[in-house]
């Protein structure tokens, strides 16, 4: 509002103007404390985030075009140390990630223009839900991409060796999580022995992805020596898990030739890495427990085989012993039993013979009687028949006898001693004898 009068020029033909300070002041007037430019929620991407020693956070807010590279809008921004102190915590708790470059954020900004420093956006608040949503969206995209690549389940489908003792560990040495993990493995209750080898990596910040990839490659070169990989980091801290939402890292783990246990120590939503590891655990301790359990299961299996073997052995020996006992007894008792059996059989046979022969004899005797009787009967019958027949014949003979004929009044005629049956046998004048029932007379044939 300093409307300074124009300075008259010393030389009449040179143009005049106001000072930059004056002009900037006018801009400042337009910008500062404008209601539209104060406490407005703005969506942007962070860039060049730097936190100074004094605690102030300086950054650029940018907007990129559809190609994701061309910057279409940008502004310098600052979060003063007092606000940053609170916002940092709020952001990390809300997203599980540290406030950093390259993040989509929703921030409350106030524009201010300073004659000396120019335009600056002061950030006074942040809504982590926006970033969280963006992170979740990106994570989902990466997961979808891995699914369409057909690799997302590859590591899960690798067969586990029965004995998992040789373990490649990717972690930051000195991290509490690593120490706990090693401790638990070396002091397990079953006396199982494990062989670990640490491959160092940074487990947070923007060096995470390259160092973990480098460690994985080193392990791959010695893949024959190891049986599985464990990726762990300090338990409890849920900061900066965003580094594990990386496509290339996930791809490498998904296609890794050894099964990978992912235990990057958090309770919340899973990172992309959690989706591709063969096993996901929540803490380094849980990773150790998983490995110990595999070993304990093997010990139990050996125990079971031992028990089964002993049982089978006992069973077989008992049966053999029983059989032997039976056989030894049978050697003694069998002959006796057999003799007894045979004796009974002989007695039986003797009885049978006796009985049968008696029966037989009786039958025969009976038959003889019958025959005798039959003979007698038959003879009698025959005699009777013959007698009757004789009687009958006698009667017939008698009936047929000439005597009987004569008795009936017939006469017999004889001529020269021959009996005459036909008239032609005589001629008139023959002398014939006629025999009658009683007596006879002579007769001459007349005609």
């Amino acid at each position: 509002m300093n409307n300074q009068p124009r300075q008259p020029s010393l030389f009449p033909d040179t143009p005049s103007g106001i000072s930059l300070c004056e002009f900037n002041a006018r801009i400042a007037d337009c910008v500062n404390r404008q209601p539209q430019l104060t406490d407005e929620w703005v969506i942007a991407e962070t860039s060049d985030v730097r936190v100074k020693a004094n605690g102030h956070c300086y950054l650029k807010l940018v907007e990129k075009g559809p190609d994701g590279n061309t910057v279409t809008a940008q502004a310098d921004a600052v979060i003063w140390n007092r606000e940053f102190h609170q916002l940092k915590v709020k952001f990390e708790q809300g997203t599980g990630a540290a406030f950093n470059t390259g993040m989509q954020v929703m921030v409350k900004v106030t524009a201010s223009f300073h004659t000396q420093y120019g335009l600056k956006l002061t950030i006074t608040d942040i809504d982590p839900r926006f970033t969280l949503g963006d992170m979740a969206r990106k994570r989902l995209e990466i997961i979808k991409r891995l699914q369409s690549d057909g690799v997302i389940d590859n590591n899960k489908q690798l067969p586990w060796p029965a004995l998992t003792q040789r373990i490649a560990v990717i972690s930051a040495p000195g991290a509490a999580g690593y120490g706990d993990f090693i401790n638990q493995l070396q002091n397990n209750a079953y006396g199982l022995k494990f062989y670990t080898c640490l491959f160092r990596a940074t487990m947070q910040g923007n060096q995470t992805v390259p160092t973990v990839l480098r460690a994985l490659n080193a392990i791959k070169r010695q893949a024959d020596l190891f049986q599985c990989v464990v990726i762990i980091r300090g338990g409890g801290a849920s900061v900066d898990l965003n580094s594990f939402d990386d496509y290339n890292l996930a791809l490498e783990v998904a296609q890794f030739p050894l099964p990978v246990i992912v235990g990057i120590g958090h309770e919340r939503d899973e990172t992309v890495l959690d989706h591709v590891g063969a096993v996901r655990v929540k803490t380094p301790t849980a990773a150790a427990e998983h490995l110990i359990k595999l070993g304990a299961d093997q010990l139990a299996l050996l125990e079971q085989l031992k028990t089964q073997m002993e049982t089978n052995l006992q069973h077989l020996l008992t049966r053999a012993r029983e059989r032997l006992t039976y056989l030894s007894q049978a050697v003694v008792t069998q002959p006796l039993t057999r003799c007894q059996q045979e004796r009974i059989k002989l007695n039986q046979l003797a009885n049978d013979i006796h009985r049968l022969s008696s029966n037989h004899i009786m039958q025969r005797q009976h038959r003889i009687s019958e025959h005798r009787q039959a003979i007698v009967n038959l003879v009698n019958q025959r005699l009777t028949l013959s007698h009757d027949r004789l009687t009958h014949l006698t009667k017939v003979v008698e009936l047929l006898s000439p005597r009987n004929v004569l008795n009936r009044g017939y006469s017999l005629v004889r001529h020269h001693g021959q009996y005459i049956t036909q008239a032609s046998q005589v001629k008139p004048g023959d002398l014939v004898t006629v025999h009658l029932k009683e007596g006879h007379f002579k007769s001459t044939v007349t005609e």
Partner: protein
Amino acid sequence: MNESQPQTPDMTYDEATKKLEEYVSLMQDDQCSIDKLSEYTKQSQQLLEFCRRKLTETDAELQKILADIQKQN
């Protein structure tokens, strides 16, 4: 510490457990002859020892190899 060396020093753990299961199943058969029994039992016990030792005894050589690799990284 077991005095007798197992007759299977070059066997892998997986091969050993497989052989063990074979022996157990052979001995489960009622027809298993008593003569073979003694041999199977002896072999099985050796295999069990071998497996258990793999799980619970330290292979110093292996430890050294891994320690060297760790140093390199």
